[in-house]
C-alpha cells in the first residue's frame, strides 16, 4: 500500500510537467498582454520596454519556461505582474475559502442526495420515485448561475434577506462567515446533489438485485439493515468516485458561483488573473489546481480499499 502511494505520487511529476507546459503555452497564445493593462492610456514605448525587461518577457520562450518551472519546484511561485505581491500566500488564503465552500457544498449535497437516492430506489417506479428523479434532473440540468440568481432574487424580494457584504474569515467571525458562505454552498450543493442522487439510486438498486441480499433477508434482517448496512455500503464505490470528481472540481474554484456571491476564492483569483494576462498567477494557480485534483483522485483510490476489501493495491 505504501509503495503504491509513493508510486502514485511519483506519477504526479510527468502529469504536472505536461500541465505546466500546456498552460504556459496557452498563456502565450492569448492575445493582449499584461503591460497594456498596466500602462493604460499612458502607453509609451519607453515604459513598455522597461516592463518587458522587468518581467523577463524579452527572453526566449524555452528559457522563460525553464526559469519559471525551476522556481516553482523550489517552492517559489513568483510575484504577480500586476500587484507585485507574492503569489503563493495569496493562493493559499484563497484556497482556504474555496476549501470551506467545497466542504459545505459537499455536505449539503450528501444530506440531500443520499437519503433521496435511497428512497427513490426503494420506492422505484412510484410517484415518490418520479418526484425525486425530476428533482435530480433539475439538479443536473439547471446551470448554477441561474439557480444562484433565482435564489438571491427570491430571498431578497420575498424575505428581504440580504447576505452580509464583504468577506469575513471563519475564524474572525464564524457567524457572519457562515452567513456569507451558506448561499453559495446551497447553490453548489443542490446542483451537485442531482447526479449523486441518480448515482445512489442506480447503485442501491444494482446491489438489491444481487443474490446475497436474499441471504441477508433469509437470516431475518430488517429492511433497514438490508438497505443501510448492506446495499448502501456495497453501492458506495461509484458514489465515492462521483463525489471525488465533484470535490476535485470544486476545489479548483467555482468561478461563476464565487463571482455571483463575491466570494474571494481560487476561481475568482484565476479569472481576474486571466483577464489581466497576469501570466505567473494563472500558471501557478492552474498548476496548483491540477495538483489538488490529482491528490483528490489518489485519496478516492485509497478510500476504495476501505470500502471494498476485494480492492488491494500492490
Amino acid at each position, binding site marked *: 500500500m505504501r509503495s503504491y502511494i509513493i508510486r502514485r505520487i511519483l506519477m504526479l511529476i510527468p502529469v504536472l510537467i505536461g500541465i505546466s507546459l500546456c498552460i504556459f503555452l496557452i498563456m502565450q497564445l492569448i492575445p493582449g498582454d499584461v503591460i497594456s493593462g498596466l500602462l493604460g492610456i499612458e502607453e509609451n514605448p519607453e515604459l513598455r520596454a522597461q516592463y518587458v525587461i522587468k518581467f523577463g518577457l524579452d527572453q526566449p520562450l524555452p528559457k522563460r519556461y525553464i526559469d519559471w518551472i525551476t522556481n516553482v519546484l523550489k517552492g517559489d511561485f513568483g510575484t504577480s505582474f500586476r500587484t507585485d505581491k507574492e503569489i503563493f500566500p495569496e493562493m493559499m488564503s484563497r484556497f482556504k475559502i474555496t476549501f470551506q465552500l467545497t466542504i459545505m457544498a459537499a455536505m449539503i449535497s450528501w444530506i440531500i442526495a443520499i437519503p433521496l437516492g435511497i428512497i427513490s430506489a426503494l420506492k422505484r417506479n412510484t410517484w415518490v420515485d418520479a418526484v425525486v428523479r425530476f428533482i435530480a434532473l433539475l439538479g443536473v440540468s439547471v446551470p448554477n448561475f441561474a439557480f444562484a440568481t433565482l435564489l438571491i432574487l427570491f430571498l431578497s424580494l420575498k424575505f428581504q434577506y440580504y447576505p452580509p457584504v464583504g468577506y469575513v474569515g471563519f475564524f474572525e467571525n464564524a457567524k457572519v462567515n457562515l452567513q456569507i458562505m451558506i448561499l453559495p454552498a446551497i447553490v453548489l450543493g443542490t446542483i451537485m446533489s442531482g447526479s449523486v442522487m441518480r448515482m445512489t439510486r442506480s447503485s442501491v438498486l444494482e446491489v438489491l438485485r444481487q*443474490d446475497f441480499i436474499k441471504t441477508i433477508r433469509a437470516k*431475518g434482517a430488517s429492511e433497514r439493515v438490508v438497505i443501510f448496512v448492506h446495499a448502501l455500503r456495497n453501492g458506495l464505490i461509484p458514489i465515492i468516485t462521483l463525489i471525488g470528481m465533484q470535490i476535485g472540481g470544486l476545489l479548483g474554484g467555482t468561478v461563476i458561483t464565487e463571482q455571483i456571491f463575491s466570494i474571494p476564492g481560487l476561481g475568482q483569483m484565476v479569472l481576474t488573473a486571466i483577464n489581466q494576462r497576469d501570466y505567473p498567477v494563472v500558471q501557478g494557480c492552474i498548476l496548483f489546481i491540477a495538483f489538488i485534483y490529482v491528490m483528490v483522485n489518489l485519496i478516492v483510490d485509497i478510500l476504495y480499499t476501505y470500502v471494498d476489501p*476485494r480492492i488491494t493495491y500492490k
Partner: protein
Amino acid sequence: MENILEVKNLNIDLITEKGNKKLIDNVSFNVGKKQSYGIVGESGCGKSITALAVMQLLSFPLKTSGGEINFHSEKESVNILSLKKNEIRKIRGKEISMIFQEPMTALDPIFTIERQIIEALKFHTDLNKKDMSDMALQMLKKVGIPRAEEILKEYPHQLSGGMLQRIMIAIALICKPKLLIADEPTTALDVTIQAQILDLMNELKTSFDTSIIMITHDLGVIAETCEKVAVFYAGQIVEETDVVTLFHNTAHPYTSGLLKAVTSLGDKSKNLFTIPGMVPAGGHMPKGCRFEERCNKKMKICKDKSPELIEIADGHKCRCWLYAESGDN
C-alpha cells in the same frame, strides 16, 4: 409422523402487464418433523419459487395468490402467508433457514465471514459479542472448516465455493432452525465437493434435529439425502412418494423419463436418453395433462382433461390418467 410444514393449495403468480400468469398451481405437500423432503424437477418447474414462498421471500413480479403454508414450531402454529413483515422476520433464520445455489454470490463481499455469521445471531438473540464470536467459531468447526479462527477474519472472495457453501450452512444452522431449505445446494460445486456437502448436511440434520427440504434437479442427490420426494412438472406435483418407491416403483411417465435420463458408466454404446419436447411455458398451459405432448404413454383423454393428483398406493400419489379409474375410456 407429525408435520412441521404443511403447504396447502399454494398458488404463485407472475405479474405481467398482460395479466397474471400462474407459475405454481395448487401445490400441496407436507414435510414431517426431522424428515428430509426432496423436491425434484427440471429448471423452471417452480421448485425454487415454492421454497422462496415458504420464507415469504418472493419479490415483485412474483406473488403468492392463494393457499396456506402452515408452519408448526414448538410454541405455535402459524400460516406463513398471513404473517406481517415483522412477524415473518422472527421466523426467517431462526425457525426456517435457507441455503442457496451459488455460494460464491450468496455472501456479502465486503464483510468478514465472522460478521456474516454473527449477523444471524444478532437478529434473533441477545448474546454479547464475545459469546456470538465463540458460537460462530464453534459452528465453523462443526461444518468442517479447517483453521476456523483465521477463516472468521477472511472475506468471501478469499475462499473456495465448497468452503463458502459450508459457511452458508453454518450461517443457516447457527440459530438451530427447525427447518432448513436447501435450494440446489450442490449444483454450483464440483462432484467431490458435492458429496462432502451432502454428507455434511446428512450429519448435521441428525445432530441438529432439523427437517430439510432439498430442492434439486439431480436424482442422485435425492437418492442420497431424502426420505420423501415430490416430482414437480410445470408448476404442479406429478408424483409424490417415499424415495425407495420412487426409484423402484415409478408411476408417472415423466419420472420414468427422468430416471432413464440418468447416465451410467460403462454403457457407452447408447446415446443419452432424453425426454423429447419442452416444458410448456408459464401462462400457456394446455387444458389437458401438462406432460401430454412429451409423454410416451399418452391416451386420448390426456389431451382433453387434466388428471388429478390421486393416491395410487399407500403414501404414493400420482397425477396421471394411467392410474385413474376414469382414465379407462
